[in-house]
């Protein structure tokens, strides 16, 4: 070993600098810290300077230029000796925190006899001037300070590294050493050889320490996690420990006696510090009195010297964590104080006094910490927590803490001990510190066992039940709603059932929704049927008419192209046509002029609304309006008269309203307004003059709304013309159509310059970026639109009612329903085809889109998911949203423990990732029928159910081949029950009766039940299986 070259090359230079420093007055010796606590000389307000200077504690650092392994203080605590692999020095630490180099013990001694020190101890009473070091080669070196720190003697008996030495506090001539070889030796410095050798029958000894209050006892910590208590005087006679505790399940590295002499703290690699009762009593107490769980393996743990009732332990990690933490054993999860001064693993901890902690580290620093300037980890923690319950109540827990004290109270603050001390005690402690009185043991609980309980923080718990969501209807509906059509059930039945369920639970709006859906889908189904017939009929006709309609196609394509441009413009509401014209060549939009409507395509199109058919006069009036205003609004009726050409299915009779921007269009509309007002009498609207009045009354309030109204009027102007044409074509529907056109008028203007825009635009598509636009404008929603007469307005009104009260909606809904039904009836009478249906605003697609948008906005994921499941095959939903709804719904069901409905939903859905969830982790865990122990080795797949549960034992696979697996119970060591009939082992399929859980071979059971026509179970349990 001596052949090793030594790396301590810089030590010579450091020695030189140290010497120079001594001459020039040690300019660099002590430097105030910059981290953690405030610099000592700053922040000293008059109120605290007294205390502070009294304590004389300042954080101070000293760089020793070599990693330090251990430190020890002289008995009068003004000198400290630090030892490392390459260093052994005595430092002087003054009260003010100035640290200076005092003596280098290595300097005067022959360096070849010095190897790395693993521990250093300063002697006590009779050996005040003695320093002993433990070396990694098994030596114990004793230095005599009276002779200038000369190496006095080397005691070499340990064959392996000595880890820790300890001077007996009662007799300083007695030295105890613990070594890697598992031995502890007691030395008398006056004798040449060790006086006794103790073997703990354990692993390497990591730490030894004498009991300070009863110096005949010492404790040792071992590498196998045990701690032992010995009495060294008995060493000659009884070579055994007094007490032994398997304290840790990993090596124990540190022990420290509590000042009361009865308890001991042990720190281990298993990241815990445990406090044990190590007193005289019976050793059967195998449980730690306290356990502190820390973040890293514990290197050292020492009690804070605070009298015999101290509850605080300073710990440092062995590696990977450079923080010193002071724990209160009553609060074992949050450190009370922390120091982050070091940059490498801390190797030594020593309390100078109650409020001053010395530490040394592998980062070559010796640091004096002042507890007054420690971090308080508790202060950086969050003291409140909030959790939601599935039924939307939430629970908030808040710790009740005093407000953080003002800065100048710093010194007092740490004595307040947070909340752990109770009131009067707090005061007493403060007083005692100020007065420097000795700790009064009587006033405090005696020792740490008196403080057995854990700290319980005072907390306020708040439970808030929000009226947003009531679980009962949800559960009821989840259990009773039809989400997938079973055999023989029609969509209509499902809707009616759901409506009834919702009605019964008082969810009237949902009930109405289902009723409406029922109507619509019935009607649409009929219409589709008729349409199919008609399409067949008209197949040849359409062929001949293609020529005729080219111009119309062109015009329609114009709209489509404009739509494209609009969406490419990135307008907030991209609204491609839901049913775009499929087979038209896209002509350049601006070169073609429509015959009737001079289209002035502006930059943006906000809306492409599908219109009801027979929009004969629409283009006339709308074009008038647009030309008049010069605003970017144009409508193109891209159809010939309906009487002439019955519509092919895909022909959307949309008119395009092209506006650049909401705001712009409003601006542009403004000059037009008076004119429109004058030219559009309210008499346009037959059935709903009231609501109209309401709207108009509110017009003056906001500019936006006035423009909207104007827009609205303009539209109604347009519709008047259309209505007119309707009247021409089918008289008997005029009144109902009046409503519907009215609704269209409203929808149109809503869509253009009003927050309700979203609903209408969503009629054409479900593009999500409408949403942002919609929310951006939602401040317009101040005006309740109480027009209950059409779906769009209904929707709008219910939207409004998010901000309003609910009954109104229900009323409105009721009326709405009636009117709607009337509408349907009327339309049905008219008997137009499915193609027309598709273009109607309340066709299934549009209606469902509106519904799901509305309900998803409301957060009614249940409704959305059910709708998506029921109508997913008829209507195109956005796949992603559908997935979100169903997933959310399933999750919600799970939270309410409604597993059966959840499973049904998963089964019914077509959304891939929801389904795939259900297909993973489907294990069956079996228990043995005899002993009820789990049978480990059988994880079979789901058995297919055919009335009775069939367990596919083949899934157990190869295990079964060796008569193991599902057939053999490891625990009770017998085969599981075989066939009830033949009592043979069942391999392959085991069929059982679900009533009595008995079963067996398929064939045997068939014979039993079918051939022999037995009714009862073959096992004789008396169950009537058939």
């Amino acid at each position, binding site marked *: 070993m001596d052949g*090793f070259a030594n790396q301590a090359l810089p030590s010579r230079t450091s020695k030189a600098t140290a010497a120079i420093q001594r001459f020039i007055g040690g300019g660099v010796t002590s430097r105030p810290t910059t981290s953690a606590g405030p610099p000592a000389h700053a922040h000293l307000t008059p109120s605290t300077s007294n205390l502070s200077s009294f304590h004389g504690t300042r954080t101070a650092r000293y760089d020793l230029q070599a990693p330090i392994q251990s430190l020890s203080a002289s008995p009068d605590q003004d000198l400290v000796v630090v030892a490392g692999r390459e260093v052994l020095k005595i430092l002087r630490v003054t009260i003010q925190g100035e640290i200076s180099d005092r003596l280098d013990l290595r300097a005067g001694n022959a360096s070849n006899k010095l190897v790395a020190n693993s521990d250093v101890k300063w002697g006590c009473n009779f050996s005040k001037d003695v320093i002993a070091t433990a070396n990694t080669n*098994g030596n114990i070196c004793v230095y005599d300070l009276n002779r200038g720190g000369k190496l006095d003697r080397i005691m070499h008996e340990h064959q392996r*590294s000595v880890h820790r030495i300890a001077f007996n506090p009662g007799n300083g001539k007695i030295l105890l050493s613990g070594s890697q070889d598992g031995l502890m030796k007691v030395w008398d410095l006056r004798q040449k050889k060790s006086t006794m050798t103790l073997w703990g029958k354990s*692993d390497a000894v990591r730490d030894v320490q004498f009991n300070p209050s009863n110096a005949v006892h010492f404790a040792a910590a071992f590498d196998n996690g045990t701690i032992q208590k010995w009495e060294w005087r008995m060493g000659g006679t009884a070579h055994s420990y007094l007490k032994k505790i398997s304290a840790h*399940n990993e090596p124990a590295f540190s022990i420290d006696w509590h000042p009361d002499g009865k308890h001991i703290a042990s720190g281990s690699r298993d990241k815990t510090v445990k406090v044990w009762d190590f007193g005289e009593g019976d050793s059967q107490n195998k449980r730690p009195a306290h356990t502190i769980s820390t973040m890293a393996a514990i290197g050292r743990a020492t009690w804070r010297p605070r009298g015999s009732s101290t509850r605080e332990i300073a710990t440092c990690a062995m590696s990977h964590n450079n923080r010193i933490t002071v724990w209160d054993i009553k609060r074992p999860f949050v450190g009370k104080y922390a120091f982050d001064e070091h940059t490498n693993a801390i190797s030594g901890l020593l309390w100078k006094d109650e409020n001053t902690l010395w530490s040394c580290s592998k980062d070559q620093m010796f640091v004096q910490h002042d507890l007054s300037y420690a971090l308080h980890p508790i202060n950086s923690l969050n003291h409140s927590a909030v959790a939601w319950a599935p039924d939307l109540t939430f629970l908030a827990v808040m710790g009740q803490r005093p407000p953080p004290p003002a800065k100048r109270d710093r010194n007092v603050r740490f004595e307040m001990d947070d909340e752990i001390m109770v009131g009067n005690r707090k005061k007493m402690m403060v007083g005692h510190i100020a007065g420097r009185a000795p700790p009064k043991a009587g006033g405090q609980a005696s020792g740490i066992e008196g403080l057995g309980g854990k700290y319980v923080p005072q907390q306020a718990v708040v439970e808030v039940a929000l009226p947003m969501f009531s679980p009962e209807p949800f559960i009821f509906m989840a259990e009773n709603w039809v989400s997938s059509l079973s055999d023989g059930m029609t969509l209509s039945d499902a809707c009616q059932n759901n409506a009834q369920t919702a009605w019964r639970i008082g969810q009237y709006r949902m009930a109405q929704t289902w009723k409406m859906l029922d109507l619509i889908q019935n009607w649409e189904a009929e219409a589709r049927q008729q349409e199919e017939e008609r399409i067949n009929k008209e197949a040849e006709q359409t062929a001949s008419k293609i020529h005729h309609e080219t111009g119309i196609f062109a015009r329609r394509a114009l709209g489509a192209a404009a739509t494209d441009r609009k969406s490419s413009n990135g307008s907030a509401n991209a609204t491609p046509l839901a049913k775009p014209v499929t087979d038209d060549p896209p002509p350049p939009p601006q070169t073609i002029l429509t015959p009737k409507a001079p289209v002035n395509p502006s930059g943006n199109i906000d809306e492409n609304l599908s219109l009801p058919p027979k929009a004969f006069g629409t283009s006339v009036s709308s074009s008038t309006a647009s030309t008049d205003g010069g605003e970017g609004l144009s409508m193109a009726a891209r159809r010939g008269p309906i009487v002439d050409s019955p519509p092919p299915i895909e022909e959307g009779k949309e008119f395009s309203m092209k506006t650049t921007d909401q705001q712009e269009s409003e601006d542009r509309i403004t000059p037009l307004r008076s004119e429109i007002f004058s030219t559009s009498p309210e008499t346009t609207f037959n059935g709903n003059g009231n609501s109209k009045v309401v709207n108009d009354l509110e017009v003056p309030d906001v500019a936006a709304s006035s423009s909207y109204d104007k827009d609205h009027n303009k539209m109604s102007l347009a519709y008047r013309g259309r209505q007119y044409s309707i009247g021409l074509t089918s008289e008997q529907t005029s009144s109902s159509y009046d409503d519907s056109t009215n609704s269209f008028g409203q929808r149109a203007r809503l869509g253009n310059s009003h927050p309700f825009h979203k609903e209408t635009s969503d009629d054409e598509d479900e593009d999500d970026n409408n949403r942002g636009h919609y929310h951006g404008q939602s401040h317009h929603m101040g005006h309740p639109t109480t027009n209950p007469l059409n779906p769009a307005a209904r929707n709008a009104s219910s939207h409004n009612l998010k901000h309003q009260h609910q009954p109104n909606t229900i009323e409105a809904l009721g009326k709405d329903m009636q009117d709607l039904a009337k509408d349907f009836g009327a339309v049905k009478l008219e008997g137009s085809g499915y193609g027309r249906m598709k273009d109607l605003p309340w066709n299934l697609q549009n209606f469902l889109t509106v519904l799901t948008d509305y309900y998803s906005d409301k957060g009614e994921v249940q409704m959305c998911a059910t709708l998506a499941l029921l109508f997913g095959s008829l209507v195109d939903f956005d796949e992603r949203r559908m997935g979100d709804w169903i997933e959310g719904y399933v999750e919600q069901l799970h939270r309410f423990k409604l597993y059966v409905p959840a499973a049904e939903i998963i089964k019914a859905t077509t959304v891939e990732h929801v389904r795939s969830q259900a297909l993973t982790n489907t294990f069956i865990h079996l228990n043995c029928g005899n002993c009820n122990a789990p049978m480990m080795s059988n994880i079979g797949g789901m058995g297919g159910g055919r009335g009775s549960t069939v367990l596919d034992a083949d899934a157990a696979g190869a295990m079964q081949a060796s008569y193991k697996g599902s057939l053999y119970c490891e625990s009770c060591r017998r085969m599981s029950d075989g066939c009830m009939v033949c009592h043979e082992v069942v391999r392959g399929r085991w069929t059982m009766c679900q009533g009595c859980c008995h079963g067996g071979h398929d064939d045997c059971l068939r014979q039993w039940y079918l051939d022999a026509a037995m009714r009862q179970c073959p096992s004789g349990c008396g169950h009537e299986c058939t």
Partner: protein
Amino acid sequence: MARGNRPQKLNYSLERWMQDPSPPLQSPTPSKVSMQNGPPPRVRGAPRPRLLLQGQRRSGKSSISSVVFHKMPPTETLFLESTTRIQKEPVNTFMDFQVWDFPGQIDYNDGTFDLEAIFSDTGALIYVIDAQDEYLEALTRLHQTIITIQRFNPSINVEVFIHKVDGLSDDFKLDTQRDIVQRTTDELADLGFDSVHINYHLTSIYDHSIFEAFSKVIQKLLPELGTLENLLNGLVSNCRIEKAFLFDVLSKIYVATDSSPVDVQSYEICSDYIDVVLDMTEIYGYDRGDSSEVSTVEESKSSMGSTNAEDWSLPDQSSVMKLQNGMVLFLREINNHPLTTILWNTRFLALICIMRKESFEKRGLIDYNVQVFQQALEKVFELHR
């Protein structure tokens, strides 16, 4: 000192092992190696140490031996067949020893076994107890075994592995251990065997604990352990190394370490490092001819760190890995003179040091000291000739 032999020997170390995944496990004696390399035949006077693995059925004996000596991933051990006869597995690592995997069902007290032959030159008895199961029966067997063994070989090390503790909570682990220790101590005291020293280890194949326990077991069988440790201590203190391990690269057992406490992360990173080096050797290593004196230098790149070009003149395999946190891992194959490998197959040994970047700057010093360390090792082994 037959310099030409060194590279030749290298072939049979890491690379060789990797090219032929389990030769030591399949060939009971290293015949192939000895033919080419020519180490003198084993001195029969020093018996091959034997480790007995015993325990109840399904307590995990075969799993332990598979994980430790066969590099089986712990999760795979679920599919191990139960052992039906005594599996004598020669483990040709740094020291030749045999692991005898006893089937749990066998009752060797029924007179059909030559207990003398089984136990007489056994170095250690490892008794595996399934901590997750009922262990009373196992304890009874353990007591019987101890008493039997005491008749034939009182100097045997009895090591009790309280196994499968990964499924237990920390408290329960300790309780289980306490209970087992208490029962065993009481029982043996009643029978008058209170001088038997038993070591208990909490182990699990899912973490390092089984390796650590095995390391301790094997270290106890090494008479040179103290010397090795002191050598390492010297190396560590003179090179400012944080931690040094002497690893057996095959089983990832550490044969010796310096006396500073072993912390889990250090051990784990070294063990992973060995894996990396072995894998790299497998990919980039080449079969060096007898005359070649160029050694392979592993340029392992850690995920974040960079690697410097290493000294190519070094005769031994070495590798350096720089970690992001300022630490450096240094691996050096301990490649002794072939004559010293009588009892010890040092070719499976590697020295791994963990040190700070600053300490690694003096690379020359470290290399020199490692060389000194190697020479010292040679001397230690020569003593055993």
